[in-house]
Structure formats: C-alpha cells, structure tokens
C-alpha cells in the first residue's frame, strides 16, 4: 500500500460517508473534517512537490484487456492541493448558516454536499491518472460530477445551462476519445509515453488532427475560445459555495490535462513542427489564449449580475494560464502554472463574498445593491483583496503570476500578445471596480439599512482564502518550489526562485521588496493623512453635494447602471455583432449534437449509460481503425 492508495481509499470512504449521512445534521460538522483529512493525506505526500519521486498506486485495473493504473506526480499534487483547499473552504462556508438558509429556501442541501465530494473524488481520480484510459475515465467522472452540481439549482436557466454544459462536455469527451484511439491505433498501448512516440511517427495531417482533437477536448473543459460559451452561465447558476468551488478549480482540470498531455508529451518541438513556420501550432494556441483573455473579460464588463461577472472573468483568466504555459520557458510556464493557484484562491474568495452578499440581501444584481461597506466590512475586505488579486495589482498573488507571464512575453518578443494580455488586465480592472463599487460603495439603499455582517462560518473561509491571496503574493517563494517541481516533472525549464520571487538574468522580481516599498508608501501616506491634517468628522451619506439639493431616501443618488457608457458605446456594437453571431453559430452546431445526447440524458441512469456508450464506442472505433491500419 502506497500513500497514493491511502489517499484513494480515504477519498472513497469520505465519498461513502458523506453520501450516507448527507441528509443528517451531522454532515455540517463531518464534511469539513473529512476534507481536512484528505488534505492531511495530501500534505503527507508533499515530498513529491519538493522534487521527490512520483507516487504510484499499487493496484491496477484490467478493463476489457486494457491495464489501467494511477500515479501522483508533482503536477497532480499541485492541482490536488488547490482542489482540496477550495473544497475545504466551500465545505466550511456551506456548513453553517448558509446551509440552513439554503435548506429553508427549498434547496437540496444533502445533494450539494454529495456533489461536492463527488467532484473532489472524481478530480482526485483524474489527477491521479497514470495512463490514457484512466485519464479518460477520470475525465468522464469530472464532467458528470460538475453536471451533478450544476443541476442542483432549481431555476430553469440553471437546468438549461447545465444541459448546455453536458453537451459541450460530451463533445469534448468524444474528441478526447478519438484522440486516444488515434494514439492507440498506432502502437497498441495507452501509456502516456506513447503520445510523444506516436506523435513523432505520425504524418503531418494526423499530427494536426491529434493536436486539435486533444486541444478541443481540453479547451472545452477550460472554457477557452471558442468553446467558452457554456461556462459562465453554468457556473453562475450553481448554488452558492458550489459556484465558488467550480469557479476556482473545476475548469482548471482542462489546464491539468493540457500540461499533462500537450506540454509534457507533445512539447514545444511538437507544437512548432505542426503547421508552417509562420503560423505553427504554438502561435495558434497563444492567440487562442490571448483572445480568451480579452473577449470574456469584456463580456464580463457588460454583466450586471455579480456571479456572472465573476464567472466570465474565470473564463478570461484561463487565457493567462495557457498564455504562460504555451511560452514553454521557465518564467512563462511558471506564471501560467502559478496562476492556477492564484486564480483559484481569489476566485473562490470572490464568489464567496458575492454569495455572502446574496445571503444577506437576496440579490446579486449589481444594479440593486450599493453602499454595503459599512454593513459588511469584512466581506468588503475580502472582496477588496480578491479584486486586487484578480486585477493583478501588487501586492497580491495575481500580480506575481501575471508579472511572470508578461515578463515571458517580453523576453520572447511578443508585443501583440503582450498588448493583448495588458488589454485583458485593464478590462479586468474596470470590471472589478464596477463589481466592488456597485456592491459595497456608493449609496446604501434604504432596504439594506439593517443588513449585518455574515456569520463566522462564512467569514472564516473567506478570510482564510484572502490570507492565502496575500501571503502567496507577499512571499511567492512558498509556492514556487512546487512550481519548479511541476516544471521538472513535465520537462519544462525550471525557474530559479527564492522566497521573495524569482531570479532572472534580465531583471527578476522580489515581492518582499515590492510589497515592502508599497507598504512603506502606504505608511507614509497614512502618517501624512493622520498627523498633518486636522481631525475629520464622519457624515451621513445624504450630507452630500447635489448642487444644493436636499437628498432623501426615496430618490436614489447612485450611479450603477451602464457603468462604462463611453467604452460600451465603442465596443457594444462589436459585442452585439460578432460575439452574438459567434455564440449563435456555435450553439446551433452544438444543438445538432444535443438531439442525440439529450436522449441519453433523459434515460434513467445517465452515468451508467454513458459509460457503457463510451466503452462501446471506444471498442468500435478501435476495431475500425485497427482494421484500417
């Protein structure tokens, strides 16, 4: 029995335990403990993240003559620890008052708990995959587990978006399966190492097909352009902490597989060999990433629902990860990988703040909120830290990973990609300011005069996550060893790091200095403010300049609707024109497939049916191709 076996056993027994007690009150206390237990198991495996050997599982499974086995590398561990921290935070968040309110509102709380542990289980399964078949099985599990969580919301839109998601996911799974079959058809083996061997043997057009199939499969999960349309709505409609969990890590499974398969086994040489010298696969993927940073960000700018806005940013931030990793150098890939953790930390925190606001006010519509900072100051603080991270400003962790990506683009001489990345960041700044302004700043509405801060059960995970956001920004050296091990394990150049940041020949980054200077500046600013100026007096929000008008509560004196009219005037037409057209065309293609898949979905036991279908299709394809070959 290895540690990995222990991990799987623990996760599986947690799954069983929670599914048994899910409708009992004890689940509130049990679930966080169980996630903590899994986390401890992971921490015991931490040596893998500091350059240790990968853990192999001692058992393997024979399925129709294929041998499946599992392993835990630094890459798996890195994603697993993010998953578990996100799950733990979500579990704590939902365990107290939020869960009570959710139950009272008619929500199926037991199912939500079950969905969370199913998600964790399937993700661990995927992260531990040791060959292409176990990867595929894990992939299917993850898709259906996310679906399970998405359909929990009673709203019609949520159901619709979940179905939309599963249609996309199945398309991706099909693409992945075809790619696996292509690999299998050459050498009769499903080991990961076969990918690079097979890839080298393939003809040019097969290479293009293989890379595209793999990329489509992973891009759909990650929500990269042009497969991004399912994600935002589906995540935004997921109930409360579920959205935080999914938004933080679920779609990053796509990133995991991209790193595992495309980066590790196809590699820079493989990508560059595909296509012409002017536009090879690397260029294509880089531009997909760049457009993914820009377009979803500017769609997010138009949202007036806080959860949707965040979900769209989740899509957009995926672009940075790919943009970093696709540069294939030490700093770029470190930036891309680190952004996964950074993004997970602040995205979960931000989703939780929005859910906290919803918990108290009942709405996440940005046009119906405002001025809550006095009522919910700690939630405001978390959101502030979160948006500074999301916007990528110092001293939060988002800055570090974005800095690494920028630096890599600069070193590689990619001005257009650089501008695209900056465009995404600026759009994010605009959008997150709108988020925090419309929720917490501005005028407090009359009906929110008695709103209180959320209970500690919700505050603790939010604050904990924001501490992570700050600490990993202040001392990125805590994370960078993990990144370095991941880079080593997937064969990328390894980054030189220290506690404060990275060392690099042409100008490194030391966040301890940067944060130190920033806080010194704030300190001096505070000294000037508090000691040089006179005593200040707090006034009521109605004691305000309005051209001599007397303000009353019945007339709103607040600016929230259509927050960036100038910009929207300029880009709104593009949005209405091209983006809508793109969405419509993709949706119509997808709906063509969905006629078939919906029938499966409506059947009684979808998971079993699908698994059978998948295996049958796999076999059929294998035979066909095998005969052909």
């Amino acid at each position: 029995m290895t540690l990995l076996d222990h991990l799987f056993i623990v996760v599986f027994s947690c799954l069983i335990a929670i599914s048994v007690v899910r409708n009992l009150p004890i689940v509130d206390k049990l679930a966080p403990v169980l996630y903590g237990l899994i986390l401890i198991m992971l921490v015991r495996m931490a040596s893998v993240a500091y350059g240790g050997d990968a853990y192999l599982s001692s058992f393997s499974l024979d399925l129709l003559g294929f041998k499946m086995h599992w392993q835990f590398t630094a890459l798996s561990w890195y994603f697993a620890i993010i998953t578990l921290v996100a799950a733990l935070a979500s579990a704590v968040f939902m365990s107290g008052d939020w869960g009570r309110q959710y139950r009272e509102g008619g929500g199926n709380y037991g199912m939500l708990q079950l969905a969370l542990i199913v998600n964790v289980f399937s993700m661990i399964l995927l992260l531990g995959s040791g060959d292409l078949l176990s990867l595929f099985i894990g992939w299917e599990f993850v898709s259906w587990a996310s679906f399970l969580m998405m359909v929990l919301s009673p709203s019609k839109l949520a159901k619709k978006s979940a179905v939309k998601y599963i249609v996309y996911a199945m398309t991706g799974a099909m693409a992945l399966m075809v790619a696996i079959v292509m690999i299998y058809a050459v050498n009769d083996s499903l080991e990961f190492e076969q990918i690079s061997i097979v890839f080298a043997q393939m003809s040019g057009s097969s290479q293009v097909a293989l890379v595209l199939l793999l990329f489509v499969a992973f891009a759909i999960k990650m929500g990269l352009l042009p497969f991004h349309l399912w994600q935002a709505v589906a995540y935004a409609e997921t109930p409360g902490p579920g959205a935080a969990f999914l938004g933080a890590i679920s779609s990053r499974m796509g990133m995991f597989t991209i790193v595992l398969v495309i980066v590790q086994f196809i590699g820079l040489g493989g990508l560059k060999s595909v296509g012409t010298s002017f536009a090879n696969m690397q260029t294509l993927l880089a531009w997909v990433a760049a457009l993914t940073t820009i377009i979803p960000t500017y769609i997010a700018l138009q949202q007036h629902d806080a959860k949707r806005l965040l979900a769209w940013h989740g899509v957009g931030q995926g672009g940075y990860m790919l943009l970093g990793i696709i540069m294939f150098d030490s700093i770029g890939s470190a930036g891309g990988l680190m952004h996964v953790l950074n993004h997970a930390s602040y995205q979960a925190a931000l989703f939780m703040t929005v859910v906290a606001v919803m918990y108290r006010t009942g709405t996440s519509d940005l046009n119906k909120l405002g001025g809550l900072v006095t009522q919910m100051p700690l939630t405001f603080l978390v959101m502030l830290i979160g948006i500074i991270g999301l916007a990528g400003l110092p001293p939060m962790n988002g800055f570090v990973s974005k800095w690494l990506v920028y630096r890599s683009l600069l070193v590689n001489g990619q001005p257009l990609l650089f501008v695209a990345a900056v465009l995404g960041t600026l759009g994010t700044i605009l959008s997150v300011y709108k988020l925090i302004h419309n929720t917490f700043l501005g005028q407090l509405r009359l009906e929110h005069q008695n709103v209180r801060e959320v209970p500690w059960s919700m505050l603790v995970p939010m604050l904990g996550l924001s501490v992570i956001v700050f600490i990993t920004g202040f001392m990125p050296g805590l994370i960078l060893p993990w990144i370095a091990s991941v880079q080593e394990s997937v064969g990328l150049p390894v980054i030189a790091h220290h506690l404060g940041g990275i060392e690099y020949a042409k100008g490194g980054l030391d966040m301890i200095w940067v944060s130190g200077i920033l806080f010194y500046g704030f300190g001096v600013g505070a000294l000037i403010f508090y000691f040089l100026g006179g005593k200040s007096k707090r006034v009521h929000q109605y004691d305000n300049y309005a051209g001599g008008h007397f303000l009353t509560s019945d007339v709103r004196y607040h600016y929230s609707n259509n927050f960036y009219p100038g910009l929207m005037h300029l880009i709104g037409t593009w949005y209405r024109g091209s983006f809508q057209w793109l969405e419509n065309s993709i949706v119509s293609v997808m709906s063509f497939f969905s006629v078939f898949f919906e029938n499966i979905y409506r059947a009684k036991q979808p998971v079993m049916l699908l698994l059978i279908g998948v295996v049958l299709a796999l076999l059929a394809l294998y035979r066909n191709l095998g005969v052909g070959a």
Partner: protein
Amino acid sequence: MKKELKIKQKERTNPLAHVFDDFIRFCQSKSLFMLHYCTGCGAIELPPAMTSRFDMERLGIQPMVTPRQADILLITGYVSIKTLKRVILTYEQMQSPKYVIGICSCTVNGGMYWQSYATAKKLNEYMPVDVYIAGCMPRPEAVMAGLQRLKDNIRNDKKEHKGSAWKDYFKRYDYYLGNQQALFGEDWQTPTDIIAEAKLYGLETEETYGKHTKLLEKHQTPLLPQEMRIK
C-alpha cells in the same frame, strides 16, 4: 458691541503652535478657493475678474466647483427664500474656515427687491457674512477690492478678529437657526449636523444652544453617519 463668547477649547501649550498657526493662516490668506453661487445678476462681474483683465489667480484665488472644496461662498445677487435654503445647505457643507461674501445690494438689504415677500433681505441674519460688496452691480474692481479686504482680514485675524466670522455660526448657532426657522418653519433641518460639528471641533458656547436648537432636536430625523460594524 457683542460680548466675547468663550469657547470650550483647551489651551495650546506647544510654543511652536502659534508659529504654526500663523503659517497656516498666512497660507489660508494666500490660497482661496471660491464657490460662486450665482443667485442673481452679480455673477456676470466674476468672469472679467477671473480672466486676463484682472486675473484673480495672481492673488491665489481660484474658482472651485463644489462646496466641499471651496473656502469662499460668493452670493452674487438677490436670495429668494427658496434659494436661501440651498445657500444654507451649501454653506454648511463647506469646510471651515469658510468665508461668505455678499455681492450686490440685494444681499445687503434686499436691494431693488426690498418690498418682495419672496426674497430674504439681510444675508447675515442667516449666516455670518465676512464682506459685503455693495453696488448694483459692483464693478470687477470692487469685487477685487473686496477679495483683497478678505485676504487682509484673514491675515490680520489675530489682531483684528475680523477674519473668523465663520466661527460665529458655531458659537451662536441658536440665533442663526432661529432666523432660519422663522422663514422655513419649525421643521427646518439640513443634513449637516452643526451642533455635532461644533462639539467635535471645540467651538460650542452657551449660545450654541437655545430654544431653537431644542425645537430642531424635536423635529429632527437624525442623520447619523453609517458606522462600520462587524457584528
């Protein structure tokens, strides 16, 4: 001559405090931001005073837009009762030290509108006025002279006590409030809590309170600031 009102303020023991105060007063006299509340025809005399012919900026006087930023409130003409409410709101929103200049005869005694039931006659019944510039209308030279007088008043405030009329509003709030209530009715209130400000900045005297402030307290819907609270 009015009797000197004692304010409840602790003595400043720091020997440098007076030097410091003098310096700040000097800077205050050198830098005046004005908010022109263009109530009447006198406003037309301000553009020439600001632009190249007279150039206020060389005296350190600049136009500003909101009462929060401004030091001087220029009332440039007749003040109807309805406007007076807004003028008082604006005046209370300004940050002390603040100065009021009444331009045109209308602010002195109602001017040509003296018989009108709808205009206020004597501006310093409702707020302390530092300088009146009479005339119908005063020429820009007169406006400049008035502003120069105000600057001198501020600089020589320590000796002549002419430059701190704004303190009178806090010290004798009851008097001003009484006059305001006589016009606007007894449920008159502004969003700014003058009494709290007087308390906070140590400007309250026995005449800050009186029967009018009692009346105010009775009718006031308190506008307390939203305090941050964690629980």
